[in-house]
C-alpha cells in the first residue's frame, strides 16, 4: 500500500488518440506501468470477447419467442433479453479495449512483442502471491469440506501466520509446498470410502498428523535462529487462541454450525455437556 495518492480524477487519461498513444510510447517514468496495463488489456480484452460470445451463444438457447412452462413468450419478456443486452454491450466494450491495446502495441513494436514480454513483478512477489492463493484454496477446497473445522483452521492459520510473520523466504516456500501436499492428500483420502468404515475420523487424524509434521519440520528449520524461535512460538499461540475463540463464538455463542464437525468439535461438545451436567 503506497502512501496516499493524489486525486484519482486528475490521473484519468484524456482519451486514446494516436497523439497520446505516441506520447505514451516515448520514455517516461510511468511507461512501464502503461505498458503492463496495455498488455493486460490485450489479454483481458480477448478473454472478455470470448466470455461475451459464450454468454450470447448460451443466451441463444433461452426461449426468445417460443413457449416455456405453458406460457407463450414474446421477445420483450423473454429471459434471454437481458443476457443478450449485457452480452452485446460486453462484446462491444471488450472489442474497444482490445483495439485500444492493439493501437498502443502498434506504436511500440507490435502486439506479439507486447504479449511476449513478462510483467514487472519480481519472483518474491509471485512466490508470496502463490502462497496466499495456495493456503486459501487448500483450506476452502480440501480441508473445510472434509476435516474438523477446528483442526483445519488450526493447521491453516499456523501455516499461514508462520509463513508470513517470520518473513523467512525458505520457511514460506516450504510451508506453502507442505500445505499443498497436505491439501492434495486430504482431498484424495476423502475419496477413499473404506477409510470412514474402518477408523473413526480418519481425515481428522490425517490432518492432525500433518499439523504435528508441520510443527516438527518448522522447528527443525528455524532452530538455529533465536529471533525466529520467539516469533514461531508467538505465531502458534496466536493461531491456537484465535482458532479456539472463533470456533467457540460461532459454534456455542452464535449457534452457527461449522462446515465440518469432527473429532475436535465433538470433544468440545462433550466438554460443554459435562459443564452443563455439573451445573
Amino acid at each position, binding site marked *: 500500500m503506497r502512501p496516499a495518492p493524489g486525486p484519482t480524477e486528475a490521473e484519468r487519461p484524456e482519451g486514446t488518440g494516436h497523439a497520446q498513444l505516441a506520447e505514451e510510447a516515448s520514455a517516461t517514468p510511468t511507461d512501464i506501468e502503461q505498458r503492463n496495463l496495455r498488455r493486460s488489456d490485450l489479454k483481458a480484452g480477448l478473454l472478455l470477447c470470448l466470455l461475451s460470445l459464450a454468454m450470447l451463444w448460451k443466451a441463444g438457447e433461452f426461449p426468445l419467442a417460443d413457449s416455456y412452462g405453458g406460457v407463450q413468450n414474446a421477445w420483450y419478456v423473454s429471459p434471454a433479453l437481458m*443476457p443478450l443486452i449485457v452480452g452485446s454491450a460486453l462484446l462491444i466494450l471488450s472489442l474497444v479495449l482490445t483495439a485500444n491495446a492493439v493501437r498502443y502495441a502498434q506504436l511500440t513494436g507490435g502486439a506479439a512483442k507486447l504479449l511476449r514480454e513478462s510483467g514487472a513483478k519480481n519472483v518474491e512477489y509471485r512466490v508470496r502471491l502463490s502462497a496466499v492463493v495456495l493456503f486459501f484454496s487448500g483450506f476452502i477446497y480440501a480441508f473445510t469440506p472434509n476435516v474438523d473445522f477446528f483442526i483445519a483452521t488450526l493447521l491453516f492459520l499456523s501455516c499461514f501466520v508462520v509463513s508470513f510473520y517470520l518473513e523467512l523466504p525458505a520457511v514460506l516456500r516450504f510451508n506453502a509446498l507442505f500445505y499443498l501436499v497436505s491439501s492434495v492428500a486430504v482431498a484424495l483420502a476423502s475419496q477413499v470410502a473404506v477409510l470412514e468404515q474402518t477408523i473413526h475420523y480418519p481425515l481428522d487424524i490425517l490432518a492432525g498428523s500433518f499439523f504435528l509434521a508441520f510443527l516438527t519440520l518448522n522447528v527443525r528449520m528455524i532452530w538455529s535462529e533465536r529471533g525466529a524461535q520467539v516469533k514461531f512460538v508467538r505465531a502458534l499461540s496466536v*493461531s491456537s487462541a484465535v482458532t479456539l475463540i472463533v470456533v467457540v463464538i460461532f459454534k456455542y455463542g452464535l449457534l452457527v454450525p461449522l462446515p465440518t464437525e469432527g473429532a475436535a468439535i465433538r470433544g468440545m461438545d462433550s466438554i460443554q455437556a459435562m459443564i452443563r451436567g455439573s451445573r
Partner: protein
Amino acid sequence: MDVLDQLGVFFTSIAGIASQPTNFLVLLGATLSGILFGALPGLTATLGVALLTSLTYGMPVDTALIALLGMYVGAIYGGSYPSILINIPGTAAAAATAMDGYPLAQRGEGGRALGLTTTASFIGTVLGLVVLAVAAPLIASLALKFTSFEFFVLAFFGITISGTLTSKDLVYKGWIAGLLGLALALIGRDSLQSFPRYTFGFSELDGGLDVVPVLIGAFGVPQIMDVLSKKLSLTKPKRVKRLLPEFGAIVKNLHHIVRSAMIGVGIGSVPGVGEDIAGWVSYGAAKNSSKNADKFGQGEPTGLISSETANNACIGGALIPLLTLGIPGSPPAAMLLGALMLHGVQPGPMLPVEHPDFLVRVTAILVLASLSMWICGMLLAPQVIKLLRVPTGIFLPIVGVLCVVGSYALGLNQFNLYLMMIVGIAAYALQQMQYPISPLVIGLILGPMADENLRRALMVSKGSLLPFFTRPVSLFFIAITVLVVLSQLPWTRSLMRTVVQSFVGLLRRGRASNPLNGDHS
C-alpha cells in the same frame, strides 16, 4: 407522519436504544469494531459490514441495524488513524486525510490531528443524517410515482455513473466492471418465468449468487492477497498521548465543514460512488477556497477537517438512494442493502408505507452511532493505535478465517466458500488491471432490479420503447446517462474543447473591438 410525530419517534428510539443494555453494548462494540476495521490497512468498511451481516443474522432487526450502522460509521472514521499516524490510509475514504494529517503527526501533533478528525467525523455524520431525514421522505414520495420504466433507467444510470466516476484508468473499464456485475446477477432462475440462466445444471446456482460471499470475496480476499504479496512493512505509528477535541478550530472552520458536508452528501447520493471521492473533492474545494492554500499538505487543519467531514457525511448521502429507491450510494451501503433484505426489510419507495417509522429509527441510530464513535475515538484512540503495530502477517490470516466463516455462516452452504474464493481471485486480477470493483458490486446488486423492471416495462408497453422517452423522469436519467457516456468519448471531448476555445476566442475578439475598452483593433 407529521413532523411532531417523527420527532416523537426519533426521541423515543434514542431513549429506547440508550436504555437497553444489550443495544447499548452492541452499539459500542460495533462502533469500536468499525474503528478497528477502518484503522487496519487491508480491511474496509464494506468487509466489516459484510462480516457483521453474518453475525447479526439471528438478531432482531433493530439490534442488527444498530450493529451494522455502528460498524459503518466507525469504519469510515477509523481509516483516519493510519492516515495520520503512518501515512497509509486505512480505507480509501481517508486517503485525503493523510495529506495534512501525517505532517501534523510528524510535528508531534498526532493527538491534535486525531481530535480534529474525530470531531469533524462526528459533525459530518450528523449533518449527513439531517439531510437524510429531510430529503429522504421527499424522494420516497416522488419515487412512489415511479414505474418500471423509471426503475430500469435508474438502475442503468447507477451502474454507468458508478463505472464512470470510479475508473482510474480507461473509463470503459468501469463500464465493463458494471456489465460483469450485471452478468453475475443473471445467474440463476429468472424472477418472472423461473427459467434457469447460466446455471449449467448446478442446483446451487438456481437461487443465484449470494451477495454476502460475493462481497466478501470481492472486498476481503483481494486485499489479503495484495497486502501479503507485496510484503508491506508498516512504519511504527507516531506516539499519541491524548486526543484533544479542538472545538476552537472546528468553530473557525465552520463554513468549510458545512460545504464539505454538502459535498459528502451530494457525492454519497450518487450510486456506487463512495467516500473516497467525497474526501478528495472536499479537500480540493477547501484548498481552492482557503486563504492558506499554500499551507495545505503541510499540516493545515482545514484540509483534515474538510476531508473527514465529507467522507462521514457521505454515509447519510449514501443512505438516501438506498432507503428511498433501493439503490446503494456506496459499496458499504450496497452491503447494507443485502443485510436489510436478509432481515425482511425491502428498501425502496414502499419502505415508508410498509415501515412508517423506519427512516426515523435509522436517523436515531445514526445519531447514537456518531456519538458512540466520538466517545470511542476520544477515549480509546491510544489503545486502537497499539493495534496498528500488529504485523500484517498475523492479522490478515485471521481476517481470512473470518471471511471464510462469514461466507459460510449465512447460508450454511459450502458452495458459498467456493464462490467466495473464485470471486476473490477474479476481483484481485481485475484490480491489478485497474478495474474498479464498486461498479461490479452495484451491477450485481441492481441487476435483478434492472432485469425485472425492463421486462415488466416492456410487457406494459407491449414491446414499445417509446415510454422510456416520453416519461419525463425516465427521459431525464437517459439524457444524463447519454451525456455522461458521450463526455468520455475522445471525439466529444475534442469537439467540446473546440467549441469552448471558439467561444473564448469570440469573447476576446468582442472585448478587443469594444471602444469602451479603449482598445482599437
